[in-house]
Structure formats: C-alpha cells, structure tokens
C-alpha cells in the first residue's frame, strides 16, 4: 500500500477557502521593449500560501515568461527579495493573508540596482560592496592545533550579524543607497560588523578604515528602513551605530 497521507492532503486543499487576488507586477524585458509596464494577473490562492506561490502560479499557469529568482522557498537562501506593496520582503516569507489581499498586491524589483528582466536585478554591485569589507576572518601568528577558544559571551557579541543571508533587502531599502550607488550599504556594514566584533579577528582596524571612507558608514542617516526590511530580524541600524561608535572610540 502506498503512503497514505497525500490523497487526504489533496482533498483538504480542494476544500480550503481559496480567494481570488490580483497581482500587479512590474514587467520589464529589454528584448521586447525599453519601457517597464505594470501587468495585472488574477489568480485563485489559499491566503495561507506565500507570495512566491502566487508568482509560481502565474509563471506555471498563465505566463511562463514571468521571471524572478528563487530557490529554497523558506527564507534561507536570500534569492527572492522584492518590493511587495511598497516594502522590501522575501516573497517566500510573505503570506498572502498578511498583506491585505482585498487590494491588488504590487510586486516590483528591489530598488537601487539595475533591473535586468522583470524582478531580476543585477546583484554584482551589491556583492562587490560585500567583498570590499574583507568578509573573512583575518588572524596573525601561528594557528593553534585545536580550535581557537572563544567564550560564549564573546560568541554572542556578533551573533545577530551572522544571520545575514545577503538578500539585499536592507541595502535596497536605503534612501542613501538609492541616491548614491557608491555607498557600501547596510548589508556590507553588517558583514563588516560580524568580523569587527568577533574576538578571534585581528583586522578590525583595517575594516574600520574602509568604512571610514567617504562612501562608508557616515553616510547612514539612521532611517531604520534596513532594520524594518531585514527578513532575518537583524538589528541592522544598531549594528551600523556600533560600527560608528567603534570608529570614534576605537574600542570593539
């Protein structure tokens, strides 16, 4: 006998309260036109499903050319950051019921990065800023035979900023970044923080100098957009403030 669960699951979803929602999606395909347009799609969906499920329904049932990135579908890989009803979110962590399905749900690419097609943007400048802060442990002297020791308190000090999945939701929600793509942006600073406050790392001074740059941490205007946007709940603005303070006091 086959594993018994699946037919029942099917039956239940068939009985579940599907609602009709409108997705209003910003479309852009330079192979077809230089202009971006809004396009509406109406689909039936269970409000407990994710915006990503809605995008899949559109792609799989209505228009195969709708283009977006996605992979894990549960908020870990960072592929599907997009602007949903005007706010940066991960499509796979946003349930339909939580974003007022009565009105059209608007979906746009994240801002401040060049749109390549539909919801796909050029991530290269974002990753370049990340690489620029030297996001790797730097130590001096001989390596110990066993692990380096680190107290639970020292480990806890930078725990929050290790959660970053590089989705760019924070950086692309930052008004400073929108106006000036040269700014490192919150994500790069978060990842510098992750090493500056790691007791094992010995390149804190170097990283601080990088962020002391004209395009560095002082550009931050503390609007808290980044903290609101982070799908991992990282206190991004707080991390940026800690880096600023470390620059002044040289204590970290």
């Amino acid at each position, binding site marked *: *006998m*086959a*594993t*018994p*669960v*699946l*037919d*029942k*699951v099917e039956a239940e*979803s068939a009985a579940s309260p599907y609602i009709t929602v409108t997705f209003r999606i910003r479309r852009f*395909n330079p*192979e077809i036109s230089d202009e971006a347009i809004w396009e509406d799609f109406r689909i039936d969906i269970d409000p407990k499903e994710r915006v990503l499920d809605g995008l899949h329904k559109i*792609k*799989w*049932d209505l*228009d*195969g*050319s709708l*283009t*977006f*990135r*996605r*992979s*894990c*579908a*549960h*908020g*870990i*890989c*960072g*592929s599907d950051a997009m602007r949903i009803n005007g706010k940066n979110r991960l499509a796979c*962590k946003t349930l339909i019921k939580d974003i007022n399905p009565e009105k059209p749900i608007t979906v746009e690419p994240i801002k401040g990065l060049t749109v*390549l*097609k*539909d919801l*796909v943007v050029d991530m290269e400048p974002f*990753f370049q800023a990340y*690489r620029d802060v030297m*996001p*790797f*442990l730097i130590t001096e002297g001989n*390596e110990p035979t*066993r*692990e*380096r*020791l*680190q*107290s*639970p308190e020292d*480990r806890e000090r930078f*725990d929050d900023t*290790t*959660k970053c*999945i*590089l989705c760019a939701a924070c950086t692309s929600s930052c008004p400073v970044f929108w106006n000036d793509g040269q700014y490192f942006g919150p994500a790069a600073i978060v990842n510098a923080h992750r*090493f500056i406050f*790691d007791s*094992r*790392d010995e390149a804190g001074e170097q990283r601080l100098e990088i962020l002391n740059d004209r395009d560095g941490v002082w550009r931050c205007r503390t609007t808290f957009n980044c903290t609101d946007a982070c799908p991992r*709940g990282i206190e991004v603005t707080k991390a940026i403030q800690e880096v600023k303070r470390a620059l002044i006091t040289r204590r970290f």
Partner: protein
Amino acid sequence: MKIHKYDTVIVGAGGAGMRAAIESTKRSRTAVLTKLYPTRSHTGAAQGGMAAALANVEEDNWEWHTFDTIKGGDYLVDQDAAEILAKEAIDAVLDLEKMGLPFGRTPKGEIDQRRFGGHSRNHGEAPVRRACYSGDRTGHMILQTLYQNCIKEGVEFFNEFYVLDQLIVEEDGVKKSAGVVAYELATGEIHVFQAKAVIYASGGTGKFFKVTSNAHTLTGDGQAACYRRGIPLEDMEFFQFHPTGIWRMGILLTEGARGEGGILRNKDGERFMEKYAPVMKDLASRDVVSRSIYTEIREGRGCGPEGDHVYLDLTHLPPEQLDAKLPDITEFARTYLGIEPYTDPIPIQPTAHYAMGGIPTNVQGEVLADNSTVVPGLYAAGEVACVSVHGANRLGTNSLLDINVFGKRSGIAAAEYSAKADYVELPENPAELVVEQVERLRNSTGNERVADIRKELQETMDANVMVFRTEQTIKSAVEKIAELRARYKNVSIQDKGKRFNTDLLEAIELGNLLDLAEVMAVSALARKESRGGHYREDYPNRDDVNFMRHTMAYREVGDDGSDSVRLDYKPVVTTRYQPMERKY
C-alpha cells in the same frame, strides 16, 4: 559559442563545490560554474550540525562514529570510506573554525556539541553529543564561511551558468573527461569549458518529490548530465525521508530539535518512539523514525481532522533554550503555521530530504565508469556523489561532514591531476547536444506543459516510491514515468527569449528529474528487500545473501534511439564490521 580553458572546473557552489574550490584554486587555475549565486545553495538550509568525535563535552572517538555511520547506513556503507569520513571529521571541523566559522561554544570556550539521531556512545549504548553546531543554522554558517574563504582565495566564479553537458571522449579505449558545456542564464549564450579536471558538486535530486525539504533548484542536473554520457548511477533507490518536515509544506525542522529534548507524539499524546526504538527513542535513525510516524498514521493514531500528521512537541523545553538553540525553526513554525512552539506542538510529517545514491566515486572523489575503472579527469563530491559513506540511510550531520571531507579531497585530487595531465582534445562539435536541446525546447510547438508534467511526476513519486513501497506501487511509478517521459517530448515553453529564460531552464530541469526518477524507480523495483531508506512491504526484511551489494544503473541506448535502464551490481567494501541486526 565561447570556448574557455581552465585546469580545473567545478560544477556547483554549495558546500562541496566551494570546499573543493578553496583547495583547487591554491593549486590550479580553477573556474566554478554555478547555476545560483553561491550563497543561494541549499547547503545553507542545513540546520542541526556537523558530526565529529571531538570529545569536547563527553567521551567519544572516531571509531564509534565510524560504527554508527555503518550501522545507520544498514551495512550498505563502504567501510573504508566511512573510516575516512569519521577520522577526517575532526580536522574538517577544526579547518572550518580556523576559517572563521562561529560555532556554538562551551563555557570553556571550546566548540560545543549536541546529540543527534543515530550517533551513540560505544556502539549503541546511549546517545552521544557529537554534532558541532551554530544554533540551528549550521549549514548557513558553513556556506557563508566557505564563500568568504573563496573570496579570500580569489576563487573565480561564473554565477548563473548552468552546466548542461559533460564531454566524454574515448582515447585509446579509455573514457576521459574533456570538459563541460554550460548555458549562461543572463544572455542565453552557450559556453564550452575545456578542463583537465571537472568536479561535480551540484547537489541532490529531491524535487522529483512533492513534499520535500529540497529547494526548487535541486533537480539532479549533474547526475543527469553524467548519466546521459554513459556514467552509471549508484544506489539511486535509497532516498532519505526526514521525519520532521512542516506538515504539508515539507520545510525542514532539524533533528537537533529532538537532540535538544523535543519529543514526537501521536494524537493520544503518546511518546510513540519508545515502542519502536527503546534505547535511542526519538533519536533513532531517520528511516526508522519516518516509518514509525507513518505506522502511527496508518494505524489511526495520527493527529488533526484527517489524522495525517503527528506532533513535534517542544513545549516542555524552556523558551530561553528554544531561543538560543533553535531560533530559526521556531520562527518557521510561527511564520508558516501561525503556531507558537513555546506553548503548542508543531504538526509534522516526513519530507523527502536526501539522495544517498549518485555518481559513483572512490575515496579520492574520482568518478567510476563501472565497478572499478576510473574516468580520468572526472570527480564528484557531496550529495551528487555516492562514495558510499551513507549506504542505505545517511545519519543526520553526516552530510555537512561529507561535503567538507570529500569536497576537500576531490579539490586536492583534481588539482593534482590537472597539474600533471594534458588537455583532452574537445570533440569536433562540443556544444552540439546542448544547442540541439535548447533550440528544440525554444522552438517546440508541442501541447504539453512543464508544470503539468512536473506535478504528475511529483504526485506519482510521493504516492508510490516514498517511505513504504511494494512491487505494485513501484511498477505503477515506472509506468507513469514512462508515460511522462513520452509526453515530455512534446513539451513547449512560452518564453522564447534569450535573456534570463527561466522558463527554458525549468523545462530542462524537468527532463533531468524525469531521467533520474526512472533510474530510481527501476533500481527500487529490482531490490527485493528492505534496507535503510528503501522499505518494501512485500519484502520487509534485509536480505544480505542476495542484496548486500550496491546497485549500478546504466543508460542503454537501443538502435532506434530509445533508451532504458540496465542494472548491474557492485560489492560492498567491508573492513571490520560484520552486518548485524539493526536496533535502536
């Protein structure tokens, strides 16, 4: 078409690919081709830990770890490989720590360790704390740390390059790897990478199931590319179903939840695992726990109005412990189910999780063309490969270990090979197959749709070759897959463009899944016994006389161009552990 030349090409940038890249970039000119940005890889979704007998918190040694791995794999593990895995685990963890990985720490400042399924003290006496972890995002930290070190080493990535073909050339009667052919997603351009050595590290095949913990992108691309070019696939009937996926969605909730004291309960609140595994209880091996869950459900003790799931109960654990040790999975329960794990149990069901089988390799990561012949210049590591360290059922935390140990080994072996080998001359028209495949899909006017065929495939796989299998269910899967493969020939896509054509990509991925599903079902049909993750209700016992052997599946092409699966078998390497009855 562009032609590139590298010493070493790595296909895939998850844990195994990036661990290999760190080694091979130091030793040879290396390119990493990856269909996703490296940090999007599914290694990042692994949660609970990475096993190594560090003995930081209690007595442990690598020999016990070896035994647990072999027993966990129901004795289908190659024991020489398992020894290497357990022995090199210790350095693999220390390597990562030195690269910067922020492991959880003991009060003394050493790497902390937690319990995990199937890992025991002294050959099964009691659970042991062997899993090194970083909260419940160990895989995320491994992926980030390896990517960071790839940046440090200057690894050259080709992001969103999708490898569609493995070039194999016969020289003096020996099959050799000449390179790969890749499709650039951004432009639609086709690239040939000539390389002395190629390492496949492209991950699993879990997307042929419907309820799965796997990412949308885990479509067996590496396995399919090699299989189509005559490389066998080993032990594909062995697939792991993780006991605790979120009900209906399949999102993984780590075994570490049970390692921290979580308990599985049926609708009567009973801790049912005590019946099935009196010693290890909720921490028995995953195949045992998944079968126990479905046994409870089938016997009417499942939860909910449909009786189709059980509960993972964390409510007796202090909220501070959940916040510190299991923050991500408790948030998944809140986000996707609207459940508060402090006070309410979480509905779960087994979810398709991990392919034990794959491209056969030896312990250096060299790919085998048959039971013993190495394909010069071809390597594989991680979930795409079958060494075999996981046998019929992988232990939790052994996959993060596998990618590090065998990623490193294959990276070194491939770079050393390319340092002394010559390029194999490319075939006359190296991109022919890929050009033909892409053009056919782009120009097809057939009336079949990718989404329909994929849905039917996933439904038949879930219904027929999941936790419980019989001759009848597997046969119906084989028939259905044959029908779907025939219909796939008439599949067409709507997006005819060149730029970021993910419509085309999904069609290609579906073709890979169909080929691999066929191999899996045919392999499962022939294995008339129950072992590890392969459970046959019509043959409920393990049969060491007839089936203590690895399955080797080959693609056979008939004169009319039709293809079929031919099965052969390979002996298991046994060193010091004779098969015993498996009890937890």
